[in-house]
């Protein structure tokens, strides 16, 4: 009896040992401590500000700034307001972040795939890149690009001339400024329309193939036509290059045209591969010889010729060993949408008589006139951010691809998919699910890291607002709060996107 009483009686514990009450007590204590801490800070700040005779409030945003900014996307001068300075800084931050994200994504994906390459040399080069770049502070890399590379460029009069009328000197990179005339608008409209049309054709062809097992007849004919045109174009180019290299051929009248037509005819027969290989061989030869001459000017010509022969031989070998099936079966014929994308705007350009002139930079007495000048701060920041972030993106891509289980690859292989199709159709779509979340946070990191531009004088948000504006107005609390709020907003937007994406692609488990 007594034992039963003992069991059924409520446990006799002191009220402060009850987990619920204890939790409440802890929370009240913590909340009180936090409130007291903030009250203490606010009190101190108020006293300090009163002692320094400073006011608070956001009315300073509507005062004229009185300083100039070296690089702005919107008009800004000394009579502009502080909020305009804020906007200039924000836009500059977003500009450099957008450019950096674009290049870092490309470089990062290439490096990530290269690290997993079965080619030992390529994998080693990518590994060395990642291990070196990841372990050196970004600020040091920015200093390197800015002070040691771009600032060490020659003065304006000794500018290096790069291809396409681009110049590089101490004051940055000067590129030609495109000057489109009014007919160019038609070409742009045609380009947009042809993008839509190309996507439409691809979708139609793929849907029809999924239903019937064949591409629709018009697509097949269109592809053959596109192949013919492309072969004709490339063949003409290759044949004229050949005529340049081998003088004996140039004595034959209309050699390039004859060669191109011959190659195009061959491309309709089952010897199409040989025709393509010939074109590939000649083009690679020309490119490789040009590049090697630039890179190893000190080597005797025979070695350069040998190197070019090696490279072009490899390209021809690849083309010969390539897909033996006609272009209209198997993988999707890319030449048709390409023809639409390039051909239609090109036709409009030709018919409408539009002209795209370029304002070329010209060296005058003290500086270049014309062209667009990219300030060295921007160039250094883009370089640094791209190279640094690409190393991290490469690691994300690598781990994403490795996260796809081997069984998936093996299953795809047992279905008879080739290496490229295995990657494209099975591995990459699954890897993207793993890659996208860390990739988004790398984009956010890049945006946050762009604030280091302040150290090399690029006028982004921190430099313009937390630097100059804060120094001039002395409104430390307001300025820092606004700046932090901007980054906080960007971060929250990113995590909202990430949650949405994760919810969309998450594996539906049993």
């Amino acid at each position, binding site marked *: 009896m007594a034992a039963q009483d003992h069991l059924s009686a409520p446990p006799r514990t002191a009220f402060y040992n009850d987990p619920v009450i204890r*939790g409440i007590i*802890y*929370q009240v204590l*913590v*909340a009180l401590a*936090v409130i007291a801490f903030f009250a203490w*800070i606010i009190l*101190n*700040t108020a*006293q*300090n500000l009163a*002692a320094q005779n400073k006011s608070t409030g956001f009315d300073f945003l509507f005062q004229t700034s009185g300083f100039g900014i070296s690089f702005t996307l919107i008009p800004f001068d000394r009579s502009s307001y502080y909020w305009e300075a804020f906007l200039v800084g924000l836009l500059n931050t977003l500009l450099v972040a957008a450019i950096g994200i674009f290049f870092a994504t490309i470089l990062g994906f290439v490096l990530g795939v290269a690290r997993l*390459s*079965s*080619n*030992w*040399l*390529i994998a080693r*080069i990518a590994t060395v890149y990642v*291990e070196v770049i*990841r*372990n*050196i*502070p*970004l*600020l*040091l*890399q920015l*200093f*390197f690009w800015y*002070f*040691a590379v771009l600032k*060490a460029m020659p003065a304006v009069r000794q500018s290096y001339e790069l291809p396409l009328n681009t110049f590089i000197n101490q004051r940055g990179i000067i590129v030609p400024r495109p000057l489109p005339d009014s007919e160019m608008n038609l070409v742009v409209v045609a380009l947009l329309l042809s993008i839509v049309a190309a996507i439409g054709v691809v979708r139609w062809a793929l849907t029809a193939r999924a239903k019937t097992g064949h591409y629709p007849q018009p697509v097949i004919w269109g592809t053959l036509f596109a192949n013919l045109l492309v072969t004709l174009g490339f063949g003409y180019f290759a044949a004229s290059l050949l005529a340049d290299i081998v003088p004996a051929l140039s004595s034959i009248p209309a050699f390039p045209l004859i060669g191109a037509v011959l190659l195009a005819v061959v491309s309709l027969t089952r010897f199409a591969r040989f025709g393509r290989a010939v074109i590939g061989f000649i083009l690679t030869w020309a490119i490789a010889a040009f590049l*090697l001459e630039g*890179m*190893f000017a000190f080597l005797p010509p025979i070695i350069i010729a040998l190197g070019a022969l090696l*490279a072009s031989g*490899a*390209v021809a*070998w*690849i083309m010969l*060993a390539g897909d033996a099936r006609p272009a209209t079966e198997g993988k999707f014929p890319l030449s048709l949408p390409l023809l639409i994308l390039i051909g239609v705007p090109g036709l409009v350009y030709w018919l409408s008589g539009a002209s795209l002139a370029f304002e070329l930079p010209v060296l005058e007495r003290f500086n270049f006139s014309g062209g667009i000048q990219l300030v060295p701060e921007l160039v250094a920041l883009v370089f640094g951010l791209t190279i640094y972030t690409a190393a991290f993106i490469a690691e994300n891509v690598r781990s994403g691809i490795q996260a796809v289980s081997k069984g998936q690859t093996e299953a795809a292989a047992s279905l008879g998919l080739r290496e490229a199709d295995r990657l494209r159709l099975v591995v990459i779509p699954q890897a993207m699910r793993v890659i996208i979340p860390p990739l988004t946070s790398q984009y956010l990191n890049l945006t*946050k*890291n762009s*604030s*280091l531009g*302040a*150290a090399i004088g690029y006028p982004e948000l*921190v430099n313009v607002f*937390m630097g100059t504006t*804060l120094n001039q107005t002395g409104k*430390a*609390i307001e300025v*820092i709060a606004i*700046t*932090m709020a901007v*980054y*906080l907003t*960007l*971060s929250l937007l990113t995590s909202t996107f990430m949650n949405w994406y994760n919810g969309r692609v998450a594996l539906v488990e049993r």
Partner: protein
Amino acid sequence: MTYSYTREEMVDAREAPVNTSGPLAWARRNLFATPSDALLTILAFIFLIWAIPPIYGFIAPDAIGGNAVAPGGTVEECRLESAGACWAYISARMSFFIYGFYPPEEYWRPNVVFALGALLLLPLLAPSVPFKRTNAVLFFVVFPIISFYLLNGGVLGMPAVPTEQWGGLMVTLIISLVGIFCSIPLGILLALGRQSSLPIIKTLCIMFIELWRAVPLITVLFMASIMLPLFMPQGVTVDKLLRALVGVTLFSSAYLAEVVRGGLQALPRGQYEAAQSLGLSYWKSMGFIILPQALKHVIPGIVNSFIALFKDTSLVSIVGIFDLLNTVQAASSDIDWSSPTQAITGYLFAGFVFWIFCFAMSRYSVFMERRLDTGHKR
């Protein structure tokens, strides 16, 4: 006697199989497996023979075939048109890069701190060295106190050296070590708070973590260096180095908290329930059951955030503290050693120092991960 089912003549000798060992076979498998592989190999090879000799020539001193000026050389040699990296400049300014503006006659004090740190740290890192607990107490409690009094001086007849005179690699190491020391406990507490069932504590922790993670470190440092003095009562001044330390610690503890939370979430619920059913209190179950397993899970993540912290210390140069990068930057405008390659040599040196530390940390984390792996991985 012959049977109808036996052969009478020898089978033709088969061709020898393709060699699968040796350097040629290795090259065939790893460099020339397919035509595209061959092309890539050729391109990469051309790139390497284009890129490596100039880089080697720039870095290597002339004794081993390069153009660089070895330590001990003169500035005139560095100013030659053909000269590579000016290592003579680095060796001449080495003490500035290590100690900053610390008075030269007091160099023995940082040296003692370095030696003491290495003496305590190495046995702590090496597995299977006894007295780990004593060692840890010495390193985490006694060592910081001794170091502070040694470096700061003002006691035992050592002249005081204000933190404005500290600099170079010394300050970089101080900031990263203090950041690591302080952010580990703070980060663990924040992670536990974020996982807590008490709503107010949870909300506060989430707000703290997300705020610091959302903003760039440079804004945190600006905030610490501009607003911290405002927050203090009148008449209280906060040392410049201390402000940076506060900023770095707050920032890195938020990142560490997220890493630790990953480990806490990776533990199966059964571990929490088992600890409770043993009647352990919250702190005991965390200390004895949950944290040892959770922290082991996230060693790579923790080391990664240490590497990030170490690299991030270079940002304190923006708020005017003379860390390694800032001393290199300041020395690169030194007229006595001005030469075309002065700046680039300084950056190469600083980059190499940062790289050594970060690479060593990441290798150590790989090593520890393997050692602590108890075979629970699939």
